[in-house]
Protein backbone atom coordinates (compact mmCIF):
# COMPACT_ATOMS: atom_id res chain seq x y z
CA UNK A 1 0.00 0.00 0.00
CA UNK A 2 2.67 2.46 1.00
CA UNK A 3 5.30 1.23 -1.44
CA UNK A 4 3.99 3.18 -4.45
CA UNK A 5 4.13 6.38 -2.39
CA UNK A 6 7.72 5.77 -1.32
CA UNK A 7 8.54 5.06 -4.95
CA UNK A 8 6.88 8.31 -5.98
CA UNK A 9 8.81 10.38 -3.46
CA UNK A 10 12.07 8.58 -4.14
CA UNK A 11 11.74 9.09 -7.90
CA UNK A 12 10.79 12.73 -7.45
CA UNK A 13 14.16 13.46 -5.84
CA UNK A 14 16.38 11.81 -8.43
CA UNK A 15 18.34 13.33 -11.26
CA UNK A 16 17.31 12.40 -14.77
CA UNK A 17 20.13 9.90 -15.14
CA UNK A 18 19.36 8.29 -11.77
CA UNK A 19 15.79 7.62 -12.87
CA UNK A 20 17.02 5.56 -15.80
CA UNK A 21 18.92 3.04 -13.68
CA UNK A 22 18.02 -0.60 -13.29
CA UNK A 23 17.81 -1.95 -10.67
CA UNK A 24 16.76 1.37 -9.15
CA UNK A 25 18.20 2.88 -5.98
CA UNK A 26 15.69 3.79 -3.30
CA UNK A 27 17.71 6.58 -1.75
CA UNK A 28 18.52 9.26 -4.33
CA UNK A 29 22.10 10.50 -4.29
CA UNK A 30 22.40 13.45 -4.73
CA UNK A 31 18.95 14.52 -3.55
CA UNK A 32 17.54 16.64 -6.36
CA UNK A 33 15.17 19.12 -4.67
CA UNK A 34 15.34 21.26 -7.76
CA UNK A 35 12.90 18.88 -9.53
CA UNK A 36 10.09 20.46 -7.52
CA UNK A 37 11.06 23.95 -8.60
CA UNK A 38 11.31 22.86 -12.21
CA UNK A 39 8.06 20.88 -12.16
CA UNK A 40 6.07 23.70 -10.56
CA UNK A 41 7.40 26.33 -12.90
CA UNK A 42 6.71 24.14 -15.95
CA UNK A 43 3.04 25.11 -15.82
CA UNK A 44 1.20 27.86 -13.89
CA UNK A 45 0.26 25.65 -10.96
CA UNK A 46 -0.47 28.66 -8.76
CA UNK A 47 -3.24 29.63 -11.19
CA UNK A 48 -4.55 26.06 -11.13
CA UNK A 49 -4.53 26.07 -7.33
CA UNK A 50 -6.42 29.34 -7.24
CA UNK A 51 -9.01 27.99 -9.69
CA UNK A 52 -9.41 24.79 -7.72
CA UNK A 53 -9.99 26.76 -4.52
CA UNK A 54 -12.48 29.03 -6.27
CA UNK A 55 -14.50 25.90 -7.05
CA UNK A 56 -13.88 23.93 -3.89
CA UNK A 57 -14.63 26.58 -1.26
CA UNK A 58 -18.09 27.67 -2.46
CA UNK A 59 -19.06 24.07 -3.17
CA UNK A 60 -17.92 23.06 0.29
CA UNK A 61 -19.86 25.76 2.13
CA UNK A 62 -22.90 25.43 -0.10
CA UNK A 63 -23.03 21.67 0.18
CA UNK A 64 -22.80 21.77 3.97
CA UNK A 65 -25.80 24.10 4.06
CA UNK A 66 -28.04 22.43 1.47
CA UNK A 67 -27.22 18.83 2.36
CA UNK A 68 -27.79 19.46 6.06
CA UNK A 69 -31.07 21.24 5.34
CA UNK A 70 -32.29 18.29 3.27
CA UNK A 71 -31.04 15.88 5.89
CA UNK A 72 -32.99 17.82 8.54
CA UNK A 73 -36.14 17.74 6.44
CA UNK A 74 -35.89 14.01 5.85
CA UNK A 75 -34.88 13.09 9.38
CA UNK A 76 -36.83 15.34 11.70
CA UNK A 77 -39.92 16.54 9.94
CA UNK A 78 -43.09 14.73 8.99
CA UNK A 79 -44.82 15.51 5.74
CA UNK A 80 -46.56 13.57 2.99
CA UNK A 81 -44.24 12.23 0.31
CA UNK A 82 -41.18 12.40 2.53
CA UNK A 83 -40.15 8.77 2.41
CA UNK A 84 -40.86 8.39 -1.30
CA UNK A 85 -38.75 11.43 -2.08
CA UNK A 86 -35.95 10.11 0.09
CA UNK A 87 -35.98 6.85 -1.84
CA UNK A 88 -35.80 8.85 -5.08
CA UNK A 89 -32.79 10.68 -3.64
CA UNK A 90 -31.05 7.44 -2.77
CA UNK A 91 -31.77 5.83 -6.11
CA UNK A 92 -29.78 8.64 -7.73
CA UNK A 93 -26.70 6.84 -6.42
CA UNK A 94 -27.50 4.06 -8.89
CA UNK A 95 -27.61 6.36 -11.89
CA UNK A 96 -24.40 6.34 -13.95
CA UNK A 97 -23.03 9.87 -14.08
CA UNK A 98 -22.59 9.80 -17.86
CA UNK A 99 -26.38 9.61 -18.37
CA UNK A 100 -26.93 13.13 -17.07
CA UNK A 101 -23.50 14.40 -18.07
CA UNK A 102 -24.42 14.60 -21.75
CA UNK A 103 -27.73 16.53 -21.46
CA UNK A 104 -26.36 18.77 -18.70
CA UNK A 105 -23.38 19.61 -20.90
CA UNK A 106 -25.73 20.58 -23.73
CA UNK A 107 -27.75 22.67 -21.28
CA UNK A 108 -24.68 24.56 -20.09
CA UNK A 109 -23.50 25.03 -23.67
CA UNK A 110 -26.80 26.80 -24.40
CA UNK A 111 -26.41 28.93 -21.28
CA UNK A 112 -22.90 29.87 -22.40
CA UNK A 113 -21.44 28.48 -19.19
CA UNK A 114 -18.81 26.32 -20.85
CA UNK A 115 -15.31 27.49 -19.96
CA UNK A 116 -16.59 29.11 -16.78
CA UNK A 117 -16.44 27.65 -13.28
CA UNK A 118 -20.24 27.77 -12.85
CA UNK A 119 -21.05 24.23 -14.10
CA UNK A 120 -18.64 22.90 -11.49
CA UNK A 121 -20.03 25.00 -8.64
CA UNK A 122 -23.79 25.29 -9.01
CA UNK A 123 -25.01 21.71 -9.61
CA UNK A 124 -23.18 20.15 -6.64
CA UNK A 125 -24.43 22.89 -4.30
CA UNK A 126 -28.04 22.59 -5.36
CA UNK A 127 -28.24 18.85 -5.21
CA UNK A 128 -26.19 18.68 -2.03
CA UNK A 129 -25.09 15.22 -3.10
CA UNK A 130 -27.43 12.35 -2.26
CA UNK A 131 -24.79 10.57 -0.21
CA UNK A 132 -24.20 13.68 1.90
CA UNK A 133 -27.93 14.08 2.46
CA UNK A 134 -28.02 10.45 3.51
CA UNK A 135 -25.16 10.95 6.00
CA UNK A 136 -26.84 13.99 7.53
CA UNK A 137 -30.19 12.23 7.78
CA UNK A 138 -28.69 9.24 9.51
CA UNK A 139 -26.88 11.43 12.01
CA UNK A 140 -29.82 13.72 12.74
CA UNK A 141 -31.99 10.71 13.50
CA UNK A 142 -29.71 9.80 16.38
CA UNK A 143 -30.21 13.15 18.15
CA UNK A 144 -32.87 12.75 20.88
CA UNK A 145 -36.23 14.35 20.16
CA UNK A 146 -36.50 15.81 23.68
CA UNK A 147 -34.18 18.65 22.72
CA UNK A 148 -36.22 19.88 19.78
CA UNK A 149 -39.52 19.19 21.56
CA UNK A 150 -38.48 21.42 24.43
CA UNK A 151 -37.55 24.19 22.03
CA UNK A 152 -40.83 23.76 20.18
CA UNK A 153 -42.71 24.14 23.50
CA UNK A 154 -40.94 27.45 23.94
CA UNK A 155 -42.33 28.51 20.58
CA UNK A 156 -39.20 28.06 18.46
CA UNK A 157 -39.61 27.30 14.79
CA UNK A 158 -37.88 24.62 12.80
CA UNK A 159 -35.32 27.00 11.35
CA UNK A 160 -34.23 27.93 14.85
CA UNK A 161 -34.09 24.29 15.94
CA UNK A 162 -32.11 23.33 12.86
CA UNK A 163 -29.62 26.17 13.12
CA UNK A 164 -29.19 26.59 16.88
CA UNK A 165 -29.80 23.10 18.28
CA UNK A 166 -29.22 20.40 15.68
CA UNK A 167 -26.29 21.82 13.70
CA UNK A 168 -24.12 22.63 16.74
CA UNK A 169 -24.54 19.01 17.86
CA UNK A 170 -23.54 17.69 14.45
CA UNK A 171 -19.86 18.51 14.26
CA UNK A 172 -18.72 14.95 13.42
CA UNK A 173 -21.01 14.62 10.42
CA UNK A 174 -20.30 18.18 9.27
CA UNK A 175 -16.60 17.37 9.33
CA UNK A 176 -17.10 14.09 7.47
CA UNK A 177 -19.17 15.67 4.72
CA UNK A 178 -16.75 18.61 4.50
CA UNK A 179 -13.80 16.29 3.98
CA UNK A 180 -15.57 14.15 1.38
CA UNK A 181 -16.74 17.23 -0.49
CA UNK A 182 -13.34 18.87 -0.41
CA UNK A 183 -11.66 15.75 -1.74
CA UNK A 184 -14.25 15.12 -4.42
CA UNK A 185 -13.68 18.60 -5.80
CA UNK A 186 -9.94 18.74 -5.28
CA UNK A 187 -9.56 15.43 -7.12
CA UNK A 188 -12.29 15.75 -9.74
CA UNK A 189 -11.05 15.21 -13.26
CA UNK A 190 -13.93 14.61 -15.66
CA UNK A 191 -15.86 17.74 -14.65
CA UNK A 192 -13.01 20.17 -15.35
CA UNK A 193 -12.08 18.14 -18.43
CA UNK A 194 -15.52 18.77 -19.88
CA UNK A 195 -16.05 22.37 -18.91
CA UNK A 196 -12.68 24.14 -18.58
CA UNK A 197 -10.94 24.64 -21.86
CA UNK A 198 -8.62 27.61 -21.57
CA UNK A 199 -5.38 27.25 -19.68
CA UNK A 200 -6.22 30.07 -17.28
CA UNK A 201 -9.31 28.19 -16.06
CA UNK A 202 -7.71 24.80 -15.41
CA UNK A 203 -7.80 23.09 -12.03
CA UNK A 204 -4.92 21.25 -10.42
CA UNK A 205 -6.08 17.80 -11.51
CA UNK A 206 -6.55 18.96 -15.08
CA UNK A 207 -3.23 20.80 -14.99
CA UNK A 208 -1.46 17.66 -13.87
CA UNK A 209 -3.01 15.75 -16.76
CA UNK A 210 -1.72 18.43 -19.13
CA UNK A 211 1.67 18.13 -17.50
CA UNK A 212 1.59 14.38 -18.11
CA UNK A 213 1.00 15.07 -21.78
CA UNK A 214 3.87 17.55 -22.01
CA UNK A 215 6.52 15.76 -19.96
CA UNK A 216 5.53 12.19 -20.63
CA UNK A 217 8.96 10.71 -20.02
CA UNK A 218 10.48 13.11 -17.49
CA UNK A 219 9.53 10.86 -14.64
CA UNK A 220 11.42 12.78 -11.95
CA UNK A 221 9.43 15.94 -12.81
CA UNK A 222 6.15 14.05 -13.13
CA UNK A 223 6.69 12.44 -9.74
CA UNK A 224 7.53 15.79 -8.19
CA UNK A 225 4.33 17.27 -9.61
CA UNK A 226 2.25 14.28 -8.52
CA UNK A 227 3.71 14.45 -5.02
CA UNK A 228 2.96 18.15 -4.75
CA UNK A 229 -0.63 17.66 -5.86
CA UNK A 230 -1.13 14.83 -3.41
CA UNK A 231 0.29 16.66 -0.38
CA UNK A 232 -2.71 18.91 0.45
CA UNK A 233 -5.03 15.90 0.47
CA UNK A 234 -2.57 14.02 2.67
CA UNK A 235 -2.25 16.86 5.17
CA UNK A 236 -6.02 17.12 5.39
CA UNK A 237 -6.20 13.40 5.91
CA UNK A 238 -3.61 13.33 8.69
CA UNK A 239 -5.46 16.01 10.63
CA UNK A 240 -8.95 14.64 10.11
CA UNK A 241 -8.20 10.94 10.01
CA UNK A 242 -10.51 10.00 12.83
CA UNK A 243 -13.48 11.56 11.06
CA UNK A 244 -13.08 9.15 8.17
CA UNK A 245 -13.41 6.06 10.25
CA UNK A 246 -15.53 7.38 13.08
CA UNK A 247 -17.64 9.61 10.87
CA UNK A 248 -18.65 6.69 8.75
CA UNK A 249 -19.08 4.44 11.76
CA UNK A 250 -21.25 6.92 13.63
CA UNK A 251 -23.38 8.16 10.82
CA UNK A 252 -23.19 6.09 7.74
CA UNK A 253 -24.40 2.72 8.66
CA UNK A 254 -26.86 3.08 11.49
CA UNK A 255 -30.16 1.91 10.17
CA UNK A 256 -29.10 1.21 6.61
Amino acid at each position, binding site marked *: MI*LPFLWMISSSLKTRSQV*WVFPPDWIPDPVQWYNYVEALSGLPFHVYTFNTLRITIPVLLGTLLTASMCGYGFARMRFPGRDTLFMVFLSVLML*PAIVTMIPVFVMFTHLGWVNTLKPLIIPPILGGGPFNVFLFRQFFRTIPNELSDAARMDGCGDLYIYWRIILPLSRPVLATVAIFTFLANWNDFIGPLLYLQSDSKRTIALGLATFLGLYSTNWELLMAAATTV*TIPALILFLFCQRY*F*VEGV*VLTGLQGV
Partner: protein
Amino acid sequence: MAPIATFMPDAARRRRVQRTLAGYFFISPGLLGLALFLVGPLIYSLWLSLTEWDIISPPVFVGLENFRTAFLDDKLFWVSLYVTVRYTLVAVPLTLIAALAAALLLDLNIRGISGFRAIYYLPAMTPAVASVVLWRWIFNSEFGLLNYILDFVGLPKVEWLISADVVMYSFWIMALWSIGPMMIIFLAGLHGVPRTLYEAAEVDGANAWRKLWAVTIPQLSPVILFNLVIGLINTFQVFTAGYLLTAGGPKNATLFYVLYTYRNAFEWLKMGYAASLSWVLFAIVMVMTIFIFRSLGRAVHYEAG
Protein backbone atom coordinates in the same frame (compact mmCIF):
# COMPACT_ATOMS: atom_id res chain seq x y z
CA MET B 1 -70.85 24.10 20.46
CA ALA B 2 -70.70 23.96 16.69
CA PRO B 3 -68.05 26.68 16.20
CA ILE B 4 -65.52 24.83 18.33
CA ALA B 5 -66.20 21.56 16.58
CA THR B 6 -65.41 23.11 13.20
CA PHE B 7 -62.59 25.22 14.57
CA MET B 8 -60.56 22.28 15.85
CA PRO B 9 -60.08 20.32 12.60
CA ASP B 10 -59.39 23.60 10.85
CA ALA B 11 -56.52 24.42 13.17
CA ALA B 12 -55.22 20.89 12.88
CA ARG B 13 -55.38 21.08 9.12
CA ARG B 14 -53.64 24.42 9.10
CA ARG B 15 -50.90 23.05 11.28
CA ARG B 16 -50.52 20.08 8.97
CA VAL B 17 -50.28 22.29 5.90
CA GLN B 18 -47.76 24.44 7.73
CA ARG B 19 -45.68 21.43 8.68
CA THR B 20 -45.76 20.12 5.12
CA LEU B 21 -44.67 23.48 3.74
CA ALA B 22 -41.86 23.70 6.28
CA GLY B 23 -40.75 20.18 5.39
CA TYR B 24 -40.66 20.98 1.71
CA PHE B 25 -38.82 24.19 2.49
CA PHE B 26 -36.01 22.21 4.09
CA ILE B 27 -35.65 19.75 1.25
CA SER B 28 -36.21 22.42 -1.44
CA PRO B 29 -32.52 22.80 -2.42
CA GLY B 30 -32.34 19.08 -3.01
CA LEU B 31 -35.62 19.04 -4.93
CA LEU B 32 -34.48 21.94 -7.09
CA GLY B 33 -31.21 20.16 -7.84
CA LEU B 34 -33.11 16.98 -8.60
CA ALA B 35 -35.42 18.76 -11.02
CA LEU B 36 -32.78 20.89 -12.77
CA PHE B 37 -29.87 18.50 -12.97
CA LEU B 38 -31.56 15.14 -12.92
CA VAL B 39 -35.19 14.80 -13.95
CA GLY B 40 -35.02 17.47 -16.64
CA PRO B 41 -31.75 16.21 -18.13
CA LEU B 42 -33.01 12.61 -17.99
CA ILE B 43 -36.04 13.45 -20.09
CA TYR B 44 -33.90 15.51 -22.45
CA SER B 45 -31.36 12.71 -22.75
CA LEU B 46 -34.08 10.17 -23.45
CA TRP B 47 -35.19 12.35 -26.35
CA LEU B 48 -31.59 12.86 -27.49
CA SER B 49 -31.12 9.10 -27.60
CA LEU B 50 -33.73 8.98 -30.35
CA THR B 51 -31.94 11.57 -32.47
CA GLU B 52 -28.83 12.05 -34.50
CA TRP B 53 -27.11 15.23 -33.44
CA ASP B 54 -23.68 16.82 -33.81
CA ILE B 55 -24.49 19.87 -31.60
CA ILE B 56 -23.98 22.23 -34.57
CA SER B 57 -26.86 21.39 -36.93
CA PRO B 58 -30.34 20.74 -35.51
CA PRO B 59 -31.06 17.24 -34.15
CA VAL B 60 -32.74 14.75 -36.50
CA PHE B 61 -35.25 12.30 -35.08
CA VAL B 62 -34.24 8.74 -35.97
CA GLY B 63 -36.35 6.65 -33.60
CA LEU B 64 -34.59 3.58 -32.25
CA GLU B 65 -31.94 3.66 -34.97
CA ASN B 66 -29.11 4.45 -32.50
CA PHE B 67 -29.89 1.36 -30.45
CA ARG B 68 -30.09 -0.78 -33.57
CA THR B 69 -26.70 0.53 -34.70
CA ALA B 70 -25.14 -0.15 -31.32
CA PHE B 71 -26.40 -3.70 -31.02
CA LEU B 72 -26.03 -4.81 -34.63
CA ASP B 73 -23.40 -2.72 -36.40
CA ASP B 74 -21.07 -1.21 -33.83
CA LYS B 75 -18.23 -3.58 -33.05
CA LEU B 76 -16.66 -1.12 -30.62
CA PHE B 77 -19.85 -1.05 -28.57
CA TRP B 78 -19.49 -4.78 -27.95
CA VAL B 79 -15.74 -4.44 -27.36
CA SER B 80 -16.27 -1.76 -24.74
CA LEU B 81 -19.03 -3.75 -23.08
CA TYR B 82 -16.82 -6.85 -23.01
CA VAL B 83 -13.86 -4.90 -21.60
CA THR B 84 -16.01 -3.39 -18.86
CA VAL B 85 -17.71 -6.65 -17.89
CA ARG B 86 -14.38 -8.47 -17.85
CA TYR B 87 -12.85 -5.79 -15.65
CA THR B 88 -15.83 -5.81 -13.30
CA LEU B 89 -16.12 -9.58 -12.95
CA VAL B 90 -12.62 -9.78 -11.49
CA ALA B 91 -12.21 -6.37 -9.87
CA VAL B 92 -15.37 -6.46 -7.74
CA PRO B 93 -14.89 -9.86 -6.04
CA LEU B 94 -11.17 -9.18 -5.71
CA THR B 95 -11.61 -5.83 -4.00
CA LEU B 96 -14.49 -7.09 -1.85
CA ILE B 97 -12.42 -9.94 -0.45
CA ALA B 98 -9.29 -7.83 -0.04
CA ALA B 99 -11.20 -5.04 1.67
CA LEU B 100 -12.94 -7.46 4.03
CA ALA B 101 -9.67 -9.18 4.87
CA ALA B 102 -7.98 -5.85 5.51
CA ALA B 103 -10.88 -4.69 7.67
CA LEU B 104 -10.75 -7.89 9.75
CA LEU B 105 -7.02 -7.40 10.31
CA LEU B 106 -7.34 -3.71 11.10
CA ASP B 107 -10.21 -4.33 13.50
CA LEU B 108 -7.87 -6.11 15.88
CA ASN B 109 -7.00 -4.03 18.92
CA ILE B 110 -3.29 -3.69 18.44
CA ARG B 111 -1.33 -0.57 19.33
CA GLY B 112 -0.67 1.66 16.36
CA ILE B 113 -3.38 0.01 14.28
CA SER B 114 -4.95 3.36 13.40
CA GLY B 115 -1.77 4.24 11.52
CA PHE B 116 -2.31 1.20 9.31
CA ARG B 117 -5.92 2.19 8.73
CA ALA B 118 -4.63 5.53 7.52
CA ILE B 119 -2.19 3.88 5.14
CA TYR B 120 -4.94 1.78 3.57
CA TYR B 121 -7.00 4.87 3.06
CA LEU B 122 -4.20 6.94 1.53
CA PRO B 123 -4.72 5.81 -2.07
CA ALA B 124 -8.33 6.96 -1.93
CA MET B 125 -7.09 10.40 -0.91
CA THR B 126 -4.67 10.65 -3.78
CA PRO B 127 -6.10 12.65 -6.69
CA ALA B 128 -7.04 10.24 -9.47
CA VAL B 129 -4.79 12.02 -11.95
CA ALA B 130 -1.82 11.86 -9.57
CA SER B 131 -2.30 8.15 -9.04
CA VAL B 132 -2.51 7.59 -12.79
CA VAL B 133 0.77 9.46 -13.24
CA LEU B 134 2.32 7.40 -10.46
CA TRP B 135 1.06 4.08 -11.82
CA ARG B 136 2.26 4.86 -15.30
CA TRP B 137 5.72 5.05 -13.85
CA ILE B 138 5.27 1.93 -11.70
CA PHE B 139 4.11 -0.02 -14.78
CA ASN B 140 7.01 1.25 -16.90
CA SER B 141 8.44 -1.79 -18.68
CA GLU B 142 12.10 -0.84 -18.37
CA PHE B 143 12.54 1.02 -15.10
CA GLY B 144 9.21 0.64 -13.28
CA LEU B 145 8.78 -0.53 -9.71
CA LEU B 146 6.68 -3.57 -10.57
CA ASN B 147 9.16 -5.03 -13.01
CA TYR B 148 11.92 -4.29 -10.54
CA ILE B 149 10.10 -6.42 -7.97
CA LEU B 150 9.52 -9.20 -10.54
CA ASP B 151 13.19 -9.06 -11.51
CA PHE B 152 14.18 -9.12 -7.84
CA VAL B 153 12.34 -12.42 -7.23
CA GLY B 154 13.70 -13.84 -10.47
CA LEU B 155 10.67 -13.48 -12.73
CA PRO B 156 10.75 -12.07 -16.27
CA LYS B 157 9.71 -8.48 -16.94
CA VAL B 158 6.14 -7.82 -18.07
CA GLU B 159 4.92 -5.17 -20.54
CA TRP B 160 2.20 -3.93 -18.22
CA LEU B 161 0.69 -1.21 -20.35
CA ILE B 162 1.97 -2.21 -23.76
CA SER B 163 0.73 -5.76 -24.17
CA ALA B 164 -3.00 -6.09 -24.91
CA ASP B 165 -3.06 -9.43 -23.11
CA VAL B 166 -1.61 -8.06 -19.90
CA VAL B 167 -3.01 -4.58 -19.59
CA MET B 168 -6.18 -5.65 -17.78
CA TYR B 169 -4.07 -7.15 -15.01
CA SER B 170 -2.57 -3.70 -14.50
CA PHE B 171 -6.04 -2.30 -13.96
CA TRP B 172 -6.90 -5.04 -11.49
CA ILE B 173 -3.74 -4.28 -9.55
CA MET B 174 -4.71 -0.62 -9.45
CA ALA B 175 -8.17 -1.57 -8.24
CA LEU B 176 -6.61 -3.55 -5.40
CA TRP B 177 -4.62 -0.52 -4.41
CA SER B 178 -7.69 1.60 -3.78
CA ILE B 179 -9.79 -0.58 -1.50
CA GLY B 180 -9.71 2.04 1.29
CA PRO B 181 -13.29 3.32 1.15
CA MET B 182 -14.73 -0.18 0.92
CA MET B 183 -12.57 -1.24 3.84
CA ILE B 184 -13.74 1.68 5.98
CA ILE B 185 -17.34 0.69 5.40
CA PHE B 186 -16.52 -2.89 6.41
CA LEU B 187 -14.79 -1.57 9.54
CA ALA B 188 -17.88 0.43 10.35
CA GLY B 189 -19.96 -2.71 9.94
CA LEU B 190 -17.63 -4.71 12.16
CA HIS B 191 -18.07 -2.16 14.93
CA GLY B 192 -21.78 -2.84 14.80
CA VAL B 193 -21.51 -6.58 15.45
CA PRO B 194 -22.64 -7.18 19.07
CA ARG B 195 -19.80 -8.42 21.31
CA THR B 196 -22.21 -10.79 23.03
CA LEU B 197 -22.50 -12.90 19.85
CA TYR B 198 -18.76 -13.54 19.90
CA GLU B 199 -18.86 -14.32 23.59
CA ALA B 200 -21.69 -16.79 23.04
CA ALA B 201 -19.73 -18.41 20.21
CA GLU B 202 -16.69 -18.68 22.46
CA VAL B 203 -18.75 -20.36 25.16
CA ASP B 204 -19.80 -22.87 22.50
CA GLY B 205 -16.13 -23.48 21.79
CA ALA B 206 -15.92 -21.86 18.37
CA ASN B 207 -12.46 -21.07 17.00
CA ALA B 208 -11.58 -17.90 15.09
CA TRP B 209 -12.40 -19.41 11.68
CA ARG B 210 -15.76 -20.69 12.88
CA LYS B 211 -16.58 -17.32 14.46
CA LEU B 212 -15.82 -15.62 11.16
CA TRP B 213 -18.28 -17.79 9.24
CA ALA B 214 -20.97 -18.17 11.90
CA VAL B 215 -21.01 -14.66 13.37
CA THR B 216 -19.05 -12.08 11.42
CA ILE B 217 -20.09 -12.86 7.85
CA PRO B 218 -23.84 -13.24 8.55
CA GLN B 219 -23.87 -10.13 10.73
CA LEU B 220 -21.97 -8.26 8.08
CA SER B 221 -24.12 -9.42 5.18
CA PRO B 222 -26.03 -6.13 4.72
CA VAL B 223 -22.70 -4.30 4.53
CA ILE B 224 -21.32 -6.86 2.09
CA LEU B 225 -24.39 -6.41 -0.08
CA PHE B 226 -24.00 -2.63 0.08
CA ASN B 227 -20.33 -2.78 -0.90
CA LEU B 228 -21.09 -5.26 -3.67
CA VAL B 229 -23.73 -3.05 -5.25
CA ILE B 230 -21.74 0.17 -4.89
CA GLY B 231 -18.62 -1.62 -6.13
CA LEU B 232 -20.42 -2.91 -9.22
CA ILE B 233 -21.90 0.49 -10.01
CA ASN B 234 -18.52 2.18 -9.63
CA THR B 235 -16.45 -0.30 -11.61
CA PHE B 236 -18.94 -0.18 -14.44
CA GLN B 237 -18.24 3.54 -14.67
CA VAL B 238 -14.45 3.50 -14.60
CA PHE B 239 -13.17 6.33 -16.77
CA THR B 240 -10.20 8.39 -15.62
CA ALA B 241 -7.71 5.52 -15.52
CA GLY B 242 -8.71 4.27 -18.97
CA TYR B 243 -8.61 7.77 -20.37
CA LEU B 244 -5.25 8.84 -18.96
CA LEU B 245 -3.30 5.64 -18.40
CA THR B 246 -3.88 3.81 -21.67
CA ALA B 247 -6.29 5.99 -23.70
CA GLY B 248 -8.33 2.84 -24.27
CA GLY B 249 -5.44 0.93 -25.78
CA PRO B 250 -3.50 -1.11 -26.60
CA LYS B 251 -5.77 -2.45 -29.36
CA ASN B 252 -8.88 -1.25 -27.49
CA ALA B 253 -8.10 -3.66 -24.65
CA THR B 254 -9.03 -0.97 -22.11
CA LEU B 255 -11.77 0.77 -24.05
CA PHE B 256 -14.09 0.98 -21.05
CA TYR B 257 -17.74 1.63 -21.71
CA VAL B 258 -17.89 5.12 -20.26
CA LEU B 259 -14.69 6.06 -22.10
CA TYR B 260 -16.26 4.94 -25.37
CA THR B 261 -19.44 6.87 -24.57
CA TYR B 262 -17.38 9.93 -23.65
CA ARG B 263 -15.54 9.78 -26.98
CA ASN B 264 -18.77 9.52 -28.91
CA ALA B 265 -20.21 12.50 -27.12
CA PHE B 266 -17.36 14.89 -26.60
CA GLU B 267 -14.71 13.95 -29.14
CA TRP B 268 -16.82 12.84 -32.11
CA LEU B 269 -19.85 14.98 -31.17
CA LYS B 270 -22.28 12.12 -31.75
CA MET B 271 -24.53 13.38 -28.97
CA GLY B 272 -27.58 11.32 -29.87
CA TYR B 273 -25.64 8.11 -30.18
CA ALA B 274 -23.76 8.76 -26.94
CA ALA B 275 -27.05 9.43 -25.15
CA SER B 276 -28.33 6.03 -26.36
CA LEU B 277 -25.16 4.37 -25.13
CA SER B 278 -25.57 6.00 -21.73
CA TRP B 279 -29.13 4.68 -21.47
CA VAL B 280 -27.96 1.17 -22.31
CA LEU B 281 -25.47 1.47 -19.43
CA PHE B 282 -28.19 2.75 -17.13
CA ALA B 283 -30.40 -0.20 -18.05
CA ILE B 284 -27.57 -2.67 -17.41
CA VAL B 285 -26.74 -1.16 -14.03
CA MET B 286 -30.38 -1.10 -13.00
CA VAL B 287 -31.11 -4.67 -14.03
CA MET B 288 -27.94 -5.80 -12.28
CA THR B 289 -28.82 -3.97 -9.06
CA ILE B 290 -32.37 -5.27 -9.00
CA PHE B 291 -31.17 -8.78 -9.76
CA ILE B 292 -28.69 -8.65 -6.89
CA PHE B 293 -31.23 -7.36 -4.43
CA ARG B 294 -33.75 -9.99 -5.54
CA SER B 295 -31.38 -12.94 -5.43
CA LEU B 296 -29.18 -12.01 -2.47
CA GLY B 297 -31.58 -9.80 -0.55
CA ARG B 298 -33.21 -12.82 1.06
CA ALA B 299 -29.90 -14.28 2.18
CA VAL B 300 -28.99 -11.06 3.95
CA HIS B 301 -29.34 -10.95 7.70
CA TYR B 302 -31.10 -7.90 9.11
CA GLU B 303 -31.60 -7.05 12.76
CA ALA B 304 -35.20 -7.38 13.91
CA GLY B 305 -36.81 -3.94 13.75
